[in-house]
């Protein structure tokens, strides 16, 4: 299964890159992400995913490679869902300027699932994965847009996240979208310049989370 997508984000590439490496941003954008911890050249993550009748907790590791700030990287991850099986995959994420101060995020991902997940879900996985990818990147984009607005805006987003722990992906993305809508013009100059390692880690986590979601199907 191969999935790809493209998201215009009204923020400069460096800001988007920072977001891709910010564990908090990523964690908030991954529905069901319980834990995202830096671990050597990658992250370990725990994601609880529920799709239809199948619910499982996936534990796994994500590694980053081909790191090219602020243009993109490759992430690969693998998660074990216990008796439900496993999911693994990778994604290439590429950022480019849209010529109007914004960024185009493109990704191509592939995911493999095994065990019970594959047995009952191989035919459904693609549609589910696509939706999860959409949910994640739209939440991520909204968070990026919201982030540099001002302290209040960011706090507001964080508060929403904090108030609703374990919130479902859709809810999270709606909150993010609402937050984004409140910010009329994202000030491009207020990037905070997060450390690339953090960005990378975050991105990896995001992609991993997406893949996990896919796998849960």
């Amino acid at each position, binding site marked *: 299964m191969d999935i790809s997508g493209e998201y215009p984000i009204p923020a400069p590439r460096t800001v988007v890159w920072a977001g891709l490496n910010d564990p908090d941003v990523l964690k908030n954008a991954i529905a069901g992400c319980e834990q995202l911890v830096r671990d050597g050249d990658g992250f370990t993550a725990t994601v609880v995913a529920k799709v239809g009748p199948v619910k*499982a907790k996936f534990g796994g590791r994500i590694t980053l490679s081909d790191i090219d700030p602020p243009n993109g990287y490759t992430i690969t991850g693998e998660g*074990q869902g*216990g*008796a439900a*099986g*496993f999911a693994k995959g990778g994604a290439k994420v590429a950022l480019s300027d849209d010529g109007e101060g914004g960024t185009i995020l493109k990704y191509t991902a592939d995911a*493999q*699932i*095994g*065990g*019970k*997940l*594959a*047995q*009952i879900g*191989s*035919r459904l996985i693609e549609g589910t994965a696509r939706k999860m990818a959409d949910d994640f990147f739209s939440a991520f984009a909204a968070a990026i847009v919201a982030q540099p607005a001002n302290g209040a805006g960011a706090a507001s987003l964080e508060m929403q996240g904090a108030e609703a722990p374990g919130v479902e992906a859709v809810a999270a993305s709606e909150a993010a979208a609402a937050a984004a809508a409140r910010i009329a013009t994202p000030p491009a100059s207020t990037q905070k310049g997060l450390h690339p390692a953090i960005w990378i880690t975050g991105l990896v986590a995001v992609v991993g989370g997406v893949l996990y979601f896919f796998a849960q199907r």
Partner: protein
Amino acid sequence: MAADSGTATGIGASPKRKEDFRFLTGRGTYTDDINRPGQTYAYILRSPHAHAEIVKIDTAKAKGMPGVAAIFTGADYDKGGVPCGWQIHSKDGSPMIEPPHFPLCKDRVRHVGDQVALVIANSIAEARDAAEEIDVTYKELPAIVSTGAADKAGAAQVWPDAKNNTCFDWHIGDKAAVDAAFAKAHHVTKLDLINQRLAPNAMEPRAAVGDYDRATGEYTLYTTSQNPHVIRLLMGAFVLQIPEHKLRVVAPDVGGGFGSKIFHYSEEALVTWASEKVRRPVKWTSDRSEAFLSDAQGRDHVSHAELALDKDGKFIALRVNTIANMGAYLSTFAPCVPTYLSATLLAGVYTTPVIYAEVKAVFTNTVAVDAYRGAGRPETTYLLERLVEKAARETGIDRVELRRRNFIPKTAFPYQTPVALQYDSGDYEATLDLALKMGGWADFENRRAEAQKRGKLRGIGISTYIEACGIAPSAVVGSLGARAGLYECGQVRVHPTGSVTVFTGTHSHGQGHETTFAQLVSDTLGVPFESVEVSHGDTNKIPFGMGTYGSRSLAVGGSAIVKAMDKIIAKAKRIAAHLMEASVADIDFKNGEFTVKGTDKKVSFGQVALTAYVPHNYPITELEPGLEETAFYDPLNFTYPGGTHICEVEIDPETGVTQVVNFTAVDDIGRVINPMIVEGQVHGGVVQGIGQALLENCAYDQETGQLLTGSYMDYTMPRADDVPSIKVATHSTMCTHNPLGSKGVGEVGAIGSPPAVINAVLDALRPVGVTDISMPATPHKVWQAIQSAGKAKAAE
């Protein structure tokens, strides 16, 4: 044996099945219905990978979960592996490669669903929850799935000892003679075929309850088996080293098997072994998803076949090369399916004088493959009947005429084939003629033309088949590698008041033995049908048995019962002679009455039975009291059912959907005891054959080895609207070497039908230029074939 008795319950009558009341009212007792005091529940953690090393298994957290009684892994299992029951030798004389098959993997998993850990808890929910907490570290390895590619360079290796994944490389027949015949052939027809893998899908998933009794040291296994004595033998002697007198195996009501419940499965050994470890009964019940990953699957042959014909269309030689997929392990009878149950039937119903077949068996990272309804004969029949059909098209000889020209004539029996078997009887012209008539062959073109007006492509297909069943003469199969005898045991116990219990070593799981055998006994002993009870499936009740498979129950098991009844009648005659003060030689027995020749003296069967148990007036110095006899019957040959199947299909060229609109099955199955049960058996078999031809396919991801058709969303079982009303008839010649004359009917439907369906599909598609299609001929495949044939035509 007597001919049809003409009564409502005797031989040849169709009384309603005795077993149906309990089945239709939900009162059957299946393995999962059995609950033992203090019972625990087992959940088996299965591999999500097709091929991987087990680096580490951490069960510490899982063991602390609520309700957990024990968790075992391969390191804990200290008993033997599951054995294979048939040994094949390769061309060079070397024995096949037999890899170990432990119930829990020691260090490597070899297919998705391979058994990694056994979790035993107070409830199945707790067992499942605990299994979630087992942390297994795998190191993934490349997997091989493809049957055709498994022996090629670069394929992942499943077993270190099996070079190029080859289990054995076997052959049969006279290669030099075949080569010589091909050299002078007028025409050679060549065909590549895939007989795809199928999942058996019995209605009742497998289950097993192990129960160890500390007080007596006895083990009891309740299991979904077609042959409890075979399980006792294999598991007791080879796996767990439990002597027979301390091991009881019970196969209660079983909801279908189709071969998949013949084999000794490792779950049976696990629950039995674990019940002693945890000192409590252990129950395991498969769910449907698990069945797809753990029930032995069927077929999976890739073949190339060549048929040489002379200028008159006579077959002068046949050459076949087959690769058979064994899966990751050797299941109980797997090696004999593509060899002695398959290649030995390559003569079919034809006089082909020389035949040479090579069969290579390969290991792959897939679920084990073994016998499934027909076991080897559907594969051979499909190959032959597709090949003959193609030869007819290529030579321009009418396809029915070509078959007739090559039939073994009725007068030629017993007929020795060039591939070991000797057919005892048959009349292929007769079954063909009847089928052509019933199937409306002569006026088919009218129906084709009518369908064309409606925009439909209509086709008709035929298959004239033979199979070997009544498995099997022990000495013969022993010389071919079987590690067991294949006789059957029957015990007839006449009770003091004249009712009868029959104990049979065969097992009924849909076949209706309780009815058929009761008819046989009622008719023979002259006791009412209602007074006969048939008991089966418990090693503590039945003296011995080899079970039910290979359409053997009536031909072999029924013959054993007949032999036991012969003994009963012989003894009863002596008692009757004593009662009537006559010579034994003057006693006749008919319709339940003993008479003295030339007199009006008579005593009933019931009087004799009572005398045997209340021997006040009894020849006690010459004869023991009681009236109970046991017989073992070992057949002298296989039986050879055969016949003609005709299928008619209509294809919608817009959608590729194939509808089977007519199906006619005319089978020669020897003596028929219950025509209704025969019809039901043929119906079921034909539906499975249509399933293989049009719908079913067990698909694995070629790269990862993941099973892609692991549920009914993806594995297409035939449904009622996929099959027409099936016309069934029998035209019987008697089996010449068993006392009943019966040949067997359990598998004929699944054997004769797939090529009839595919030949019909190809007949329908001929006008649009399609000449080949593989099973299953799904709408997708048919539509694509139509499109690419159309493009090829346009390009001309």
